[in-house]
């Protein structure tokens, strides 16, 4: 299949890389059952985002640089979106939307936008930091051990700031896993 001459090349490229990211994100979401509590699904999604970068650091960098789709959420249910969002970003938004809905939070498009972008920033900082950024020389086991507590911290913040119910979270001591 050749490139479609009727569609701008940059758009096709962006769509192609986005599909690659979505494939990885879906694989990670599938590791947690559909009826699992929302924080678990959201955490698996965040691991998946980091896995995109670990699987192909150069491709991940290109993915971030060519992305031009909107990150603005115009409605909570995403029924009247004026701007097209990338599929992988839509997955972030849908995880956050599910958490807000399941936790009894307000269905506000602004809160959905703000929290989706902030959680994306956290996932992105980890993903980029450990592959191409300042954390890339950390020992592999340290990188792996840091991911869980940092992602937990960020998702628990979403629950605290919006006053959501904490189903799916456990209050645990912060200890480095053995080994």
């Amino acid at each position, binding site marked *: 299949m050749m490139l479609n001459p009727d569609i701008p090349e940059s758009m096709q*490229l962006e769509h*192609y890389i986005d599909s690659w990211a979505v494939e990885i994100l879906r694989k990670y979401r599938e590791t947690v059952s559909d009826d699992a509590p929302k924080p*678990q699904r959201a955490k698996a999604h965040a691991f998946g985002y980091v896995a995109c970068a670990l699987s192909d650091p150069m*491709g991940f960098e290109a993915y971030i*640089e060519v992305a031009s789709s909107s990150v603005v959420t115009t409605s909570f249910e995403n029924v009247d979106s004026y701007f097209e969002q990338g599929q992988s970003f839509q997955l972030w938004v849908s995880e956050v939307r599910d958490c807000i809905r399941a936790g009894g939070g307000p269905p506000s498009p602004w809160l959905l936008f703000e929290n989706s972008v902030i959680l994306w920033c956290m996932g992105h900082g980890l993903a980029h930091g450990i592959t191409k950024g*300042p954390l890339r020389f950390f020992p592999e086991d340290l990188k792996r*051990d840091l991911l869980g507590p940092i992602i937990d*911290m960020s998702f628990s913040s979403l629950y605290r700031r919006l006053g959501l119910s904490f189903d799916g*979270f*456990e209050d645990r001591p912060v200890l480095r896993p053995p080994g």
Partner: protein
Amino acid sequence: MVITMAKQAEDRLCRVREHLINSAIALAPTPNFSELTLDDIAHAYGITSAEARNCFANADELVNATRDYLSATLRQNIDFPTAPDFAGAVKELVMDYAKCARSNPQFFRAMYSLLPAAPNSTSDNPNPVVALVARVIDRFAPDAPDWLRMTRTFAIFACTHGYTHLCTVGSLRHLSTSAKDFLAIALGQHIVAGIHDSLDTGRSLSAVPYEFVELVGPAPPLCLPRIFPAALMPSASPHCSAAPWKLLPTKARRLSLWKRLRHDLASNYTMPG
């Protein structure tokens, strides 16, 4: 007359030194930067080998000088937070770092390429931003155990770095300055709410799967797709020393990457509809 000539020579040397450091900053994010020689870096910006050698003995000396320059500039632009509370201090840090990076994307790229962080959360960390975060945690939670301090330090750093990277080179760069500032404030609040009282209690909310290893296991059990074959990746080339990537500045490298992606796109992808 002699004094004037000596002064001119000294000025000229300073200018060459400055150009060389700027060249290193521009080339730092390129793959295989660590393999570049002093001549490679000098020639990329039209400086002769002789002029370069008057300033630096080799590439390592130039890279160290560039690191010092980047660290000093960061320290000048990001002050230690003055807010009396933890929340205010974190917000100040996020805003200052983001503003500094957004004002010069090339500087930001060089900074994360050349100033790697050490795996500790102490104030002598070679990455000045991690060192600042560690100092903030030291000030407000001096007795926190090591692992707790480490997870909180790198959590603050990861959120700040992710936000700054997306605002500088990613999709968030299209947002207005006021929207970016608003998000920076919200990010500060988010970090503080996430850390909550964990620095005092040593406990935090967690969701299963607790760790990355539980989800991915040792050696990749999930077969993850790659964008393009590993053999085409510059860092995987068996002939790295002869790779043309070595001498290309960032823009040319991106064009080359674009061509590879285009080739892979044309051969593997079908546009829906």
